[in-house]
């Protein structure tokens, strides 16, 4: 009987076991959408809590330049939350490179372990002792009751208070950089496309103005005439050019398909599609975030419950 019970228990345990996350397979929603700071792949936190956390952490980034990754998972590889956070920090370089204000908060409910890891630039405002105090006073009581939502909400609330009290943390540099970067890339593409079109037009005109007789670029169009063949669907342009230098005259004929709308539309189509491709990275009306390359020296505090 006992064996049977054990067997049933094992079966349930196997089914109920959630994925064990490694640094490489932990989803980071921030990279796709820069308003999403919380990684909650096992749905341990409620959606309401995730929304509040995202809002607060977003404010912390715009106002103080503190870039956060908050992850709540069932289990992590190795079970050591500190090592996991360090590896995460090393891999993504969370926080700006100048300020090093990255922050990683990790709770592994199955390992019953948690870590707050502070970037080098945050160690002044959030020293290890303060991180520990936040964990002891805000996180632990809720964790002991299994209230994961409250544990994370209270922790982030407390961290926000400490960060708000530091005027040396200048906000938003990273955040605005990102948006600006987005526009700069867009603008560059646009400029490049315009430049290419201008170049093509210029090249075309220069070719037309070349005089084969005196080898100078002095041909001017003196008359132009259009004939249309509706049966073939072709419009033929007859342009007459005369050289202002040696008065040499040449005639140019070129055909245009009536339905195609000409060269302008083709260029416009190419331009449009390339711009569309450039804009493909923006999902759901929001920019994907990027991490600034901040480094972590090992500051922060960890614990078990």
């Amino acid at each position: 009987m006992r064996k049977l019970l054990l067997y049933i228990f094992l079966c349930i345990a196997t089914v109920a076991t959630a994925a064990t996350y490694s640094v490489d397979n932990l989803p980071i929603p921030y990279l796709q959408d820069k308003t999403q700071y919380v990684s909650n792949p096992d749905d341990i936190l409620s959606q309401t809590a995730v929304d509040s956390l995202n809002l607060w952490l977003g404010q912390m980034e715009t106002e103080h330049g503190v870039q956060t990754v908050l992850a709540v998972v069932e289990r992590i590889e190795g079970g050591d939350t500190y090592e996991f956070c360090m590896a995460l920090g090393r891999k993504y370089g969370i926080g700006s490179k100048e300020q090093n204000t990255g922050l990683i908060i990790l709770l592994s409910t199955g390992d019953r372990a948690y870590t707050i890891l502070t970037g080098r630039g945050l160690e002044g405002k959030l020293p290890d002792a303060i991180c520990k105090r936040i964990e002891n006073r805000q996180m632990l009581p809720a964790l002991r009751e299994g209230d994961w939502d409250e544990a994370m909400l209270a922790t982030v609330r407390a961290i926000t208070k400490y960060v708000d009290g530091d005027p040396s943390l200048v906000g938003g540099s990273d955040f605005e950089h990102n948006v600006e970067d987005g526009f700069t890339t867009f603008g560059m593409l646009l400029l490049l496309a315009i430049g290419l079109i201008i170049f093509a037009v210029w090249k075309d005109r220069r070719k037309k103005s070349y005089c084969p007789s005196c080898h100078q670029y002095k041909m001017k169009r003196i008359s132009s005439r259009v004939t249309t063949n509706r049966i073939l669907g072709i419009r033929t342009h007859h342009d007459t050019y005369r050289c202002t230098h040696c008065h040499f005259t040449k005639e140019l004929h070129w055909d245009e398909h009536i339905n195609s709308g000409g060269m302008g539309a083709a260029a416009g189509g190419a331009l449009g599609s390339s711009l569309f491709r450039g804009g493909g990275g923006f999902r759901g009306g929001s920019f994907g975030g990027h991490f600034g390359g901040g480094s972590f020296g090992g500051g922060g505090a960890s614990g078990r419950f």
Partner: protein
Amino acid sequence: MKTLFGKVLTPSLTGRVRGGSFILLLGILPFLFTSCTYNKLVEQEETVDQKWADVQTQYQRRADLIPNLVNTVKGYAAHESETLEAVIAARSKATQITVNADDLTPEKLAEYQAAQGEVSQALGKLLAITENYPDLKANEQFSELQAQLEGTENRIAESRRIYNEAVQTYNVSVRRFPNNIWAMIFGFEKKTMFAAEAGAEKAPEVQF
């Protein structure tokens, strides 16, 4: 026919231009090469020195934390004086050994590491006995001190890792051909890395 900016180049002119620039290039190249290598080696050596300074800062930070920790523990576990004294003795011994970045010989580094290792061991013992004092463990000040100590140990490990990485980059540069020739001429020598901590190869024993 070769043209350059619309002008026709005669074969003799091309030859002269090419030959001249070729000889010039041959003359300059070794200098460019040397100064480039030399600058790179200087840069990497500076990085190693800086990382070494970081390592020492973190060890110093730990040493600064110890008196505070010892005093807190004393209030709760006065009769563990032997363990407490061992920590203080190891600390004062370790703080006397400082190694400058320019004479980081393997022997000096080993000595430094051994002294700091003793501090680690004494601290480990101290933290182990605190397990027997529930009042102490419940003390918030002690909990925060312990967190600071843990954070510092983490920082030490991280700064050592970064130092080792910097040394490795530098050593590879120094030993690689043809850099090794310039390194020999300018006196760049191989630097020493931290060895794995004595006892780190053994997995910690867990008792239930």
